[in-house]
Structures are given as structure tokens and as C-alpha cells.
């Protein structure tokens, strides 16, 4: 029955049909609803069931815990800022009320551009947007104006991806390009102490929306770890994540849960994840050694770095983007290590950019092709050497 229905509708969208230009849209809807019995025509007669859709869906599954926690935390911070003790249901409703519109805008605007480009280029709609549209809400503060989400998503999709030729050709991670755009175009909306918590009309005096990174970079009078703890940012608090921050980035615990899922099913490169963390730890230890006083941010212990800001989220969901990361096995170690290293370096030594993770990943995205090239040159050199033996 389904087959007959599809055959009937398909003729409108095929070449010469009335609605030919909309074929990508039609194709997207059909392939989302059904797996078609398309046969192999040449080459291998059987093919792995794994495809790009499965890959992208797996990433979203991995991100769901952080996403739902983000909704909860957004609602939680909303009530805390007003000194109200709310129940779980109220918190989730308020959180969803603040977060879901951002998700809808990111998917709506991103989807719009994706379809436009698919129609112009006459190819199928790429699945990459499923992930980009999902990640953008997780890396912005809950107070972000929706129109900025729309502009940033457009920028991320068009400049970050489509100008390079679409998914698979892009140099930078489109979601991070969107975030970087916000950071530089509308700094007031994405930095400072007041944007990280969606507050109500009245805010209790004792409440501060400063993020742990902001607190750590202040001129503290007590050792940095104590200064954090005084503000309620003990290690475990930050690990669990009921703290102000970008919507999906606060809970290291649930991000690691997602990471486990991605590593077990092999969708994300464990090499990258592990080396990002290693790079961060190494840099933090080096900075510790040079810390002038225990009050300085240089003295922040390594494990604190890993649970603060977007470090864990970046390591698991951003650095591992298969398109913009290093493609060679050897390259992935270098790529990941450098991200961790740079992220900690930037956030400690440049107080203007407390969130160094985003910049570190974008920077290494740019260098990933170079790293891969070195691996490729090595392969070519080995072969040449063998030939002259």
C-alpha cells in the first residue's frame, strides 16, 4: 500500500513533474519516514546497513541526556534566581518553555537553508543539519534572543558549511561557527555574568549568574579552588552541573554518559576524546607549575578545567565531528591533544575569552587538513623509500 502511494506521489516530483524543484523536500520526507528498498546497481551487491542517517541519529541520542538536563537546569536556575523552591514538573515546564523555542528556531532556520541549497544544487538534503540544529541550542545561553539564534544558525549553515559545498566538504564545525558568530557579533548576549541564567522579574539579592570560569578568572583573594567553592562551585557541583552556563554544557556527568555511548558504538573517535582530555590535563599541569600564587587562575587544578565551561561538551560533541576533525588515525591524537592544550591555555591566559574551548576547536579545525597532510606525506615518503631500496 505504501509502495503504491509513494509511486503515485513520486511522479509529481520526478524530472518533468510539476513539482520537480521540490524533489529534495519530497525525498527528505520520504527517506525520513521509510527506508526504501533501493537496490545496488554496480559494485558490491550488498552494503552495510550503516549510513549517514544512522551516524547522525547516534550523535543525537548521545546528546539527549545533556539536552534534557539542560532543560531541567535552565528551569532550575530560573527558580533559584528568584529564591523559589519549585517541583520537578514546574522546573521542566519552565525549562522547556525557555529551551524548546531555541531548538525550533535552530532547526527551522537551518532546515530552511538546507532545503534551499539542496534545491539549487539538486541533491538530497544532507543529514548534517540534524546534528547542527541539535547542537546549537546546547551551546548558547538560555537568555539568547531567538532572532540571534536565527541569524547565527543561518551564518553557521551558510558560511560554515554550504559555501564549502555542503556536509562533508566543510572545514569548520557549523555549530561552532554559529556560536563564534554570536560571540563576535553580539558579545553582550553571550558573555558577562548576566546572560547565563534566564531570570524572572525579581531576582534575589544573593543570586549571581556568574559562571565558574568567570569566577576563577576574577582577582580572587582566596585560593582559586576556595573562591569557587565559596560561590557554590565545588568540583562535584560542576561535575553534576546544576550551575549557570550554556544550556547543554554544564553537566559533565551526562556528557560523559553520551561519550560512553558514542565510544561503545564507535560513532565518535575515542582517540580524539581521550587526547582532548589529555591535552587539557597536561596544559593545566604546566600552568600549575608556573602559578605565581594559589589565588591565580593558573593554579586551577586539571580536573577542575575538565568540568568547567564547555570543555567536556566540546571534547565529546564538537571536536569529534567527523568532517571537520582530523581524518587520519595518527592525526587525531595530535588534533585532539592540541585542542585540549589550547583550550586551557586560552581560558587561563586570556581573560577576555574565558571560553577557550570554542576557539581552540575552530583553530584546530583549520589545522586538521595540515595535520592530515603530514600523515599523508609520511605515507608517500615510506612508499618512495621502499621503491628505492
Amino acid at each position, binding site marked *: 500500500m505504501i509502495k503504491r502511494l509513494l509511486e503515485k506521489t513520486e511522479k509529481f516530483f520526478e524530472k518533468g513533474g510539476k513539482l520537480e524543484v521540490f524533489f529534495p523536500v519530497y525525498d527528505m520526507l520520504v527517506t525520513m519516514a521509510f527506508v526504501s528498498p533501493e537496490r545496488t546497481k554496480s559494485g558490491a551487491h*550488498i552494503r552495510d546497513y550503516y549510513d549517514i542517517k*544512522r551516524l547522525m541519529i547516534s550523535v543525537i541520542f548521545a546528546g539527549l541526556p545533556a539536552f534534557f538536563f539542560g532543560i531541567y537546569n535552565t528551569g532550575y536556575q530560573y527558580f533559584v534566581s528568584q529564591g523559589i523552591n519549585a517541583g520537578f514538573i514546574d522546573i521542566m515546564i519552565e525549562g522547556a518553555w525557555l529551551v524548546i523555542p531555541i531548538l525550533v528556531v535552530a532547526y527551522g532556520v537551518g532546515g530552511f537553508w538546507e532545503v534551499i541549497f539542496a534545491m539549487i544544487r539538486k541533491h538530497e538534503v544532507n543529514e548534517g543539519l540534524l546534528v547542527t540544529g541539535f547542537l546549537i541550542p546546547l551551546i548558547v545561553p538560555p537568555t539568547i534572543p531567538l532572532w540571534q539564534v536565527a541569524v547565527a544558525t543561518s551564518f553557521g549553515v551558510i558560511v560554515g558549511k554550504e559555501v564549502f559545498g555542503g556536509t562533508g566538504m566543510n572545514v569548520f564545525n557549523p555549530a561552532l561557527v554559529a556560536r563564534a558568530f554570536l560571540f563576535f557579533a553580539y558579545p553582550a548576549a553571550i558573555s558577562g555574568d548576566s546572560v547565563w541564567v534566564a531570570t524572572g522579574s525579581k531576582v534575589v539579592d544573593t543570586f549571581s549568574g556568574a559562571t565558574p570560569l568567570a569566577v576563577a578568572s576574577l582577582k580572587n583573594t582566596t585560593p582559586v579552588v576556595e573562591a569557587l567553592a565559596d560561590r557554590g562551585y565545588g568540583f562535584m557541583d560542576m561535575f553534576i552541573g546544576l550551575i549557570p552556563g550554556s544550556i547543554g554544557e554544564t553537566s559533565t556527568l551526562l556528557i560523559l554518559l553520551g561519550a560512553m555511548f558514542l565510544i561503545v558504538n564507535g560513532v565518535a573517535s575515542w582517540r580524539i576524546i581521550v587526547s582532548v582530555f589529555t591535552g587539557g590535563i597536561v596544559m593545566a599541569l604546566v600552568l600549575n607549575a608556573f602559578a605565581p600564587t594559589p589565588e591565580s587562575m593558573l593554579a586551577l587544578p586539571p580536573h577542575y578545567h575538565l568540568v568547567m565551561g564547555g570543555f567536556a561538551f566540546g571534547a565529546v560533541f564538537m571536536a569529534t565531528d567527523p568532517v571537520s576533525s582530523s581524518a587520519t588515525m595518527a592525526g587525531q591524537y595530535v588534533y585532539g591533544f592540541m585542542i585540549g592544550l589550547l583550550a586551557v591555555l586560552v581560558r587561563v591566559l586570556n581573560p577576555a575569552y574565558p571560553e577557550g574551548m570554542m576557539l581552540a576547536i575552530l583553530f584546530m579545525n583549520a589545522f586538521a587538513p595540515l595535520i592530515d597532510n603530514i600523515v599523508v606525506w609520511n*605515507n608517500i615518503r615510506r612508499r618512495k623509500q621502499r621503491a628505492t631500496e
Partner: protein
Amino acid sequence: MADVKLKKGYHLKLEGAAAGIVEDAVFPDRVAVKPGDFISLKPRILVEPGDDVKVGTPLFCSKENNDLVFTSPASGKVLEIVRGERRAIFEVVIETDGKQRKRRFKYPDKKPAALKREDVIPLLLKTGLFPYLIQRPFGKIANPGDVPRDIFISAMNTSPLSADCNVILQGHEKLFKAGIAVLKKLTSGDVHISIDGTKEAPSKAVEGIKEVKVHRFTGPHPAGNVGVQIHHVAPIKGKDDIVWTISPLGVLDIGYLFLEHEIPVDRIMAVAGSAAINRKYFKTIRGAQLFSFIDEPYGDDIRFISGNVLTGKQVLQDGFISFYDNLVSIIHEPTKYEFLGWTTLGSKKLSLSRTFLSYYISLIRPEMNFEQKASINGGKRAFILSGIYEKVLPMDILPVFLLKSILAEDIEEMEGLGIYEVIEEDVALCEYVDPSKNEIQQLLRQGLDMIEREG
């Protein structure tokens, strides 16, 4: 002697392996020789419909070398010359008379070990057995004028549902050894034979063979591919570093020719695959019509493949076995739309990735096999680099970068990245696992063709 253990690769756990029984098939009414079986061959036809042919009568030759002929495996009449697109010869079909009248050749009156290269090459050419010899690089029929650096034989088969090499060789050890002795005369270097390293005792066929190098290979497919073995034993160094390869089938036939002084035509075929009804081995002849040994009625939506499911060619049930094949794979074609198919847990969906339940099930039940239909399972996308191709290519080659250099038509880069070391069968698994569903085998051939054209 090398003992190579390979980790990379993928053993496809497919349903429908052939049982190790060999049955005599009915002598086929029709046989055919197909120019398309031979890579980059430009054929010149030598017969006309109605012509009487014997076993060994040349049917067509290569336009580039008229000595390279392709002969009839049966006696009878030329029934038709089927042409495809742009009048390319698709197949030369012979109606057999069952008498197997043989064309006479002048056989050298020497033992295989006493033969000289000049005795061997002309006879292989005239009898139509020379095409068994394949050259690397490029994977096409060898040039009779070349003296290869080495000759490689893979006496093991790791491809999906492949015919068991031991079943093929069993009882023919003498022929195999004679074949090796003949091949020894053709190279200035060594004859290398690779055998399955998991078997404790080597096959009787290679036991006690002198003057060859025997290597043991262990690992999942493509460990049995001769290209992989060359890479690990004595890699190809460049365009002019020529080695020859030959399948055990070819070795047997060459042994037969020089021992029995007759053209060999027998071929043991495995019939396998999830849709195959009668899965076993059949003894028939080269180029036989499938019908003659696969005579069960099959419904629609069944795919017959001469060869394995990764590299074989689709044929019809009244079509013919390809020259190099000893396997017919029979699988289902997909017919049903699957609602929200990409969300399923996939307990029956075989995948190298660990994103389907099937992977975890087969951890618990390693003996379990899966059915795979001839479905593409996704849409074509750009290469999204995910390190997946390297996992199934046990060679020091960066497959994605090699393929990208072909797309960029950068010959120097292709050479640097090792295009001379691979042919289609070596990257077939990359094509199988590719989530972006690219035609990787075809792309590799485009690259090789490009190099040949540019000289």
C-alpha cells in the same frame, strides 16, 4: 616464509554457505565466453554464428595482441554473438554437442620441471589459458612478453561465502604441483603461495613443494586477497615493478594442460547465498550456463551473481559463469519499504559499525549468521571521513586520501598513495562499509584507467 597475522578486515557473517559436497552437474546445453570478464580487454571477434567449434577453438582475441586468444570450453556451434551498448561484444554463446571434440595442439614432450619458458608461453596463449595470469599493477591480463619479478598465488579464500580452497584442490594435488612447476619457469624471481594460517597442517597440495615460498596468512577478509598478500610479502614498488598473480583454479588448469596434454575445461562451482535453494558444489565446465546446475525454479526479486557478493557480476539464471569464478551467489533483492527503518535497533541488520543490535547479538552468539539483501541501505553522500575504511584495508594505504586523489585526477598523488598496490577486490570491503555509499571499486578503476591512458 612469512607468517602474517592481520587484524584489520571484516568477516561478513552471511547466511547460506555451500555444504562441502561435490555433485556432478548435467553437461550444459550452452556455454559462453564473455569479453567483459577480462579487465580493459578490447576484443576482436574470430567466429560467426553457425561456425563449428571444438574445445580450444579461438572465439575472439585481443585487438592489441592477436596472440592472446580466448577459446571455447566446449565443442558445438556458435549460436549467437550477443552485443551490448555501442555494439560491444557481451558474450559469445556456443550450443554444445556434448561430444567435446578437441582441437589438437603440439605439446612439449617434457616433464613440467624440464620445460622452458619458450615451451610454456606459446602453448598457454594458443589454448586460451594465458588469461589466467593477471598482472599487478592494474589487475589486467598479463603481457606475455614480460618477465614478472615474482608470481603470487593465494591458496586461501576469505571472501564472503567463498568456495573452500581445499574442496577445489582436493584430489588434484598432483595437478597443482605440476602447475607450480610450470609457473616457476615464467618468473625471474619466486613463486609465492599463501595459505590459511589458521589451519594447523598446510594443505596437501602445497606439502613438499620445493622451490616456492609458502606464506601463512591469518585474519578476516581481505587477508585472502592476493593484493594484500603481495603488500605484506614483497610490495609493488611502482608502475614498472610487475608481478603476476594466478588463482588456484588457473594453477590446476595449467598443471592439467602440461601433464595430460589436453585442454582442461572442468570447473567446480560453489552455489551459495541466503536465497540459494541447493547449496553445494557442482562439477561442471568453464562458462557453463547457470541453468545447467541451478535448475530449481526461482521467483522474482532474486539476484544471481557470478562470483562473490562484493566483487561478482550480476547474471541471469540463463546466463553464464564468468571465466575466473568458481562461485555463484544467490541473494534476495529488497522489495519492501520499511517504515521509520533507520530508527530500528537492527537486531538482524549486519554492520561493521556498532550502531546496530546485531553487533552485540553476535558477541553473545558468534556462530550466528545474517541475511543481506541487494539493498544500498542509504543515500549517496560526500565522503564524511570517519576512519571506517582503514578498518577493513589491512595495508599501509590511506584509502580516503587515495580515493580523493583520484577524484582530483592527481596522478602523482595516486602513485604516492599506493594505487599500484590495489585493484577493485582489495577495496571492495571499503565500498561495503562506506556509510556515504560511494562506488569505490569503480572509482579506483577510473584512477587506474587514467594512469594507463596518460602513459
